[in-house]
């Protein structure tokens, strides 16, 4: 039992570190924490990684994966977090990609995998529907076969960044008479430029527009866009949800964010002394660090299990719960640290283009928006209540 990296792993780390130092776009800066990136910024690093062959590390090598061990993937995430890199969006790389190479036809693999690897094709996810939340199986969007097309009608919601998407993967009901709600669902790829696809951004409480409602009205999709078998979509959907667990805890990012929080609390003053020297505030930061250390080892234990061939089990629900709690707490403490300067609505101020006087320190900007935004993490991806239901069933057996 030990925590050390092997010599090979250390060498790998050095290689990764220098590659990142040399290639990570300087203009992105602290991108992993920014709320206001352009779509071009969001794929910039993805494209560079695509050229290097590192954009889809966890894929099988035959499809462009790197063949890294789980430990190497952990190192990869750690090193990216060191510069707070904005990682490739998950919709192609971690979600639809694995479904396509596992269940898709050869033609689908040839057509879609290269664009996902390179970052040239932007994907979005059409799972959730209005009013359904974590209850995916209740979906109402229908796909009706008409010759060699499906005609799709329905409404999806929470389609993250769909406003920039080229393609989307959608769950649609193909058999309305199936015995159980999970049956009769199909997994279909849709070109977002198809007539009848309409994307309307949803304004969120942080003032941003990262999710959308997507209306599908008589959208005609060629049957070859069906992935796998008709009516078996639930199987692929579950596979997708379970597949990409590494990084679900967000440990590497949170570690960087704790450092940032310490920096901020070192600059803010309380009674003329740095806030970080206040026992109350220091205690909260220490608590976060301790919780994060525990989470990190828990993730490493899971990784070690994967390395030993055990698939990630329901323990990943623990990673999700604790990971999001920590992320939320981090943003909350940052807001707390900046004091009165949490109140200004910075997004709208910048729009006004004024720069006559600064409003509070740089690091205070968006602290409230980020706090508001991060409340989503305990809701999406299966709410934390759903995760607890999963553990109740799968681990406690109750």
């Amino acid at each position, binding site marked *: 039992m030990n925590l050390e990296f092997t010599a090979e792993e250390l060498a790998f780390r050095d290689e990764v570190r220098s590659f990142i130092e040399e290639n990570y776009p300087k203009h992105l800066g602290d991108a992993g924490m920014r709320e206001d990136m352009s779509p071009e910024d969001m794929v910039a690093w993805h494209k560079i990684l695509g050229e290097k062959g590192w954009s889809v590390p966890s894929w099988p090598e035959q499809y462009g994966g790197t063949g890294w061990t789980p430990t190497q993937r952990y190192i990869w995430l750690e090193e990216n977090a060191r510069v707070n890199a904005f990682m490739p969006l998950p919709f192609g790389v971690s979600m639809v990609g694995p479904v396509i190479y596992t269940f898709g036809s050869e033609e689908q693999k040839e057509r879609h995998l290269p664009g996902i690897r390179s970052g040239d094709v932007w994907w979005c996810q059409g799972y*959730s529907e209005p*009013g*359904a*939340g*974590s*209850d995916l199986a*209740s979906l109402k969007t229908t796909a009706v076969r008409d010759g060699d097309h499906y005609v799709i009608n329905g409404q999806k*919601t*929470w389609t993250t960044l769909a406003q920039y998407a080229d393609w989307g993967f959608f769950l649609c009901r193909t058999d309305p008479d199936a015995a159980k709600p999970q049956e009769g669902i199909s997994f279909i790829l849709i070109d977002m430029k198809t007539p009848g696809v309409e994307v309307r951004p*949803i*304004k*969120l*409480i942080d*003032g941003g527009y990262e999710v959308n409602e997507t209306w599908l009205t008589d959208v005609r999709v060629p049957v070859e866009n069906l992935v796998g078998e008709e009516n078996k979509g639930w199987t692929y959907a579950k596979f997708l949800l379970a597949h990409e667990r590494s990084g679900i805890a967000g440990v590497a990012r949170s570690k960087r964010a704790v450092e940032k929080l310490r920096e901020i609390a070192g600059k*803010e*003053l*309380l*009674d*003329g002394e740095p*806030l970080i020297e*206040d026992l*109350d*505030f220091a205690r909260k930061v220490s608590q976060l660090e301790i919780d994060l250390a525990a989470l990190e080892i828990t993730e490493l234990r899971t990784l070690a299990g994967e390395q030993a061939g055990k698939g990630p089990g329901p323990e990943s629900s623990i990673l999700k719960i604790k990971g999001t709690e920590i992320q939320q707490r981090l943003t909350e403490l940052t*807001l*707390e640290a900046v*004091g*009165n*300067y*949490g*109140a*200004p*609505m910075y997004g*709208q*101020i910048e729009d*006004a283009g*004024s720069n*006559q*006087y600064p*409003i*509070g320190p740089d690091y205070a900007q968006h602290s*409230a*928006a980020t*706090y*508001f935004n991060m*409340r*989503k993490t*305990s*809701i*999406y991806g299966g*709410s934390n*209540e759903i995760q*607890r239901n999963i553990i109740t069933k799968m681990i406690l057996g109750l």
Partner: protein
Amino acid sequence: MDFNFTEEQEMVRDGLSRLVREQYDWETRRGAVESDAGWRPEIWAQLAELGILGMPFSEEDGGFGGGAVDAMIVMEEFGKGLVVEPFLPTVVCAGGFLKHAGTDAQKEEHIGGIVDGSRVYAFAYAEPRGRYDLADLQTTAKKDGDGYVLNGHKAVVVGAPWASHLVVTARTSGGQRDRDGVSVFVVANDAKGVVRRDYPTVDGRRASEVYFENVSVPTDALIGEEGGALPLVEQVADEAVAALCAEACGAMKVAHAMTVDYSRQRKQFGVPIGKFQVLQHRMVDMFTEYEQSVSMTYLATLKLDAPEKERKRTASAAKVRIGQAARFVGQEAIQIHGGMGMTDELAIGSYFKRLTILNSEFGDVDHHMKRHIKLA
């Protein structure tokens, strides 16, 4: 011991409640908040007409003889509707300074305008590096002939873009965090050398960074004792704390009711989510937090005239308790609303945001907990 409102107070409450219900629905509020002005002067005029703006002043000062309990009633109703109009800075803060320490001439000059709605005030007390310490002042007021010259930078002055006048704390002597040397001035918002940068806040109000660049004010701009005004500022700040607590109670009440309501309608797995025991108990805890907050608000309000130490300790206790409750109620309201709670399409997000920011106004939980400890 009596927890009842008087008949007059009940009437005021009913009137306000009607105003909020009829003219302050959430869509209308959003329209106003997003408008250029950011507030509705016509609502302000109505409040004046209803006598709300004059309520806490004595009859001889031109008011209606009310007090802290009346302000509490108003703020609770405002909290329910997320009213943005600047009752707190104008009536509670500026009004408070005038009531406690204004000369007859000052009362004469200012209170009439407050009561009839023609004057609006903002309270410029916080500074960029001072956090929540009311005495941590780098803004200076230097004696200059017949008056004073003010220089400094005040942070996040809520309501300043709407104000005709600013009440400003400044240092006339002493070191940066000394208890002695604090003075209070009232300054016209359009006085020469007052430079503002205005902006909206995340909870739907407007605020400013206010810079005083050699602003000359006459001697009678000074309210209270030169250099000895910190106890006065603390008194007014405690009154503001009690008022904020009342506002929070109103907002929590509505946020809780909206959440219970949503849980009744919203189904998941074929069942209203309000049938899930985990969510039920959490909504019970929200209710409990709200009830405890009401109790603490009563206590803080009724102790505003108690001896200084008791007043301070109770105000801080209330701000701690309400801060904790507001955090819990706000976060749980969003969580139970799920994805819909994250959108700007439902009112609940606005309640969450107000409850968040309110928490840091006039000192956050840690600040008031320390004050409570020190006064043990």
